[in-house]
């Protein structure tokens, strides 16, 4: 019933938010701002919905968490494939999802899309070491292709459905391997090839329950974690021996 509540609050927002004179008004909300990864997590969908005040297109980009990533390429050495060359990129989104009401090239010019980093191929990924430009561009492409194959980056954009030129909704898909961290959802309202309005919403993906407890303990108290892991194993081994000796 969370969604109903949210829809109600959206209705209230629509009623009371004053409209700026020039920019269009864009109202957006998410079915939830938090994704919890629990033991039976196999991916999830969030519902994004909102309203625009005039005819146009809507593009949704969900991006996060931004971290430096090292990209390695395997090369054949003495018959064996080994990681040889590595390029590190600054602030790579672990996840990049795009949805649009029409194909992107019909909504805005390539230049605009590139400036706003809409579409996985248009992400501004900068190598930490700017010396090897040529290498960086191959590795950038390799990284984006790989992330697409792992369903972490959108290839073809998902659907944004617009009802009666006002209300819109989109399903945001998060696969089971979605990285934990903080995300930003950017919602663009395009009219005649221009972004007339943009709205940003934060959301987070976190491990929860037992998963979170184990993961956090492993990282924050790694020595105690190691000792507990050993004790569990010692106990399990002893128990196994005792139980089955009687049988």
């Amino acid at each position, binding site marked *: 019933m969370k969604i109903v509540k949210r829809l109600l609050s959206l209705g209230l927002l629509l009623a009371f938010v004053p409209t700026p004179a020039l920019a269009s008004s864009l109202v957006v909300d998410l079915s939830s701002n938090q994704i919890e990864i629990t033991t039976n997590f*196999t991916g999830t969908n969030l519902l994004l919905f909102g309203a625009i005040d005039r005819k146009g297109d809507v593009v949704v980009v969900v991006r996060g968490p931004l971290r*430096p*990533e090292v990209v390695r390429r*395997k090369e054949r050495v003495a018959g064996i494939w080994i990681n040889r060359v590595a390029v590190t990129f600054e602030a790579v989104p672990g996840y990049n999802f795009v949805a649009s009401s029409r194909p992107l090239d019909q909504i805005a010019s390539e230049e605009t899309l590139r400036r706003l980093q809409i579409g996985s191929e248009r992400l501004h990924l900068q190598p930490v070491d700017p010396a090897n430009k040529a290498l960086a561009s191959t590795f950038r492409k390799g990284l984006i292709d790989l992330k697409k194959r792992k369903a972490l980056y959108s290839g073809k954009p998902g659907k944004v459905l617009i009802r009666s030129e006002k209300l819109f909704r989109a399903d945001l898909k998060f696969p089971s391997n979605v990285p934990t961290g903080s995300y930003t959802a950017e919602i663009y309202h395009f009219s005649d090839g221009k972004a007339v309005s943009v709205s940003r919403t934060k959301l987070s993906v976190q491990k929860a329950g037992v998963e979170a407890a184990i993961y956090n303990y492993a990282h924050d108290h790694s020595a105690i974690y*190691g000792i507990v892991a050993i004790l*569990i*194993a010692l106990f399990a081994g002893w128990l196994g021996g005792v139980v*089955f000796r009687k049988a």
Partner: protein
Amino acid sequence: MDLYFPIAEMSINVLLLLALGGGVGILSGMFGVGGGFLMTPLLIFIGVPPAVAVGTEANQVVAASVSGALAHWRRGNVDFKMGFILLIGGFFGSTFGVWIFTKLRALGYIDIVISLCFVTFLGIVGGLMVAEGARSWLRSRSSKPVSTKKLHQHTWLHGLPFKMRFRRSKLYISALLPLSIGVFVGILSAIMGVGGGFIMVPAMIYLLGMPTSVVVGTSLFQIIFVTANVTFLQSVNNQTVDVLLALVLVISSVIGAQFGTAFGSKLKSEQLRALLGILVLAVGCKVGFDLIVTPAHLFSFAVTGGH
């Protein structure tokens, strides 16, 4: 039914894991091996990151060797003095091994080194087992008398200093021998996530000349401590020990091992040994094949700078 494993950071079908753990458990019960040398590559095959497979397996082997070592201890089949010397070596070896592991991981070479170690050792051990099985099968057909050897030959190894008496093993040898075997197996244990019994046992028989009755118990005794050390150091340095994954594997392999022990006593050991050898070779070949075949993805990525 899928479960999400917090350190492996992936969901894996639990039934598949139970089948793998149970299967390896049956084999370990049948042959008295720890099973780490099969389980780690199998985990890698189903997509667990190799570093996590190694850390988690070390944890599982602790459990597997405890129940085995207890059983041997009750029958008086553990040479504690020898075990202690081996484990001093194993302690240093595994500590050094985890240090190498951490360095190689930062450089992006750990996956390839793990695979190369498995190809090498699975190949050697599997090959020897198959050869041994074939030889004894031929021998039983021709029914020639088995040539009797001396308990152990004296070589230059027996001229080394720091001699010690090991009463339970009826040996008077240099402590440097078990110490260096311990170091070597300890390094492998850290890098491959195995107990190392498959190398330790032949080394004890052929290099040290220990009586076979105490070999397995003593090996298991020191494996508990060496794999515990690996579990601890992998947890501290790399956070690659998934206790949840280890627990699922422990439960299934302990149960499997009980069936394995029952099967094992009913079947002919030479044929079994040859069969296990073929299986070990097959896993080794698969690891090797994956190294040679052109990978689907040439690129890989990793988040740097930790969490």
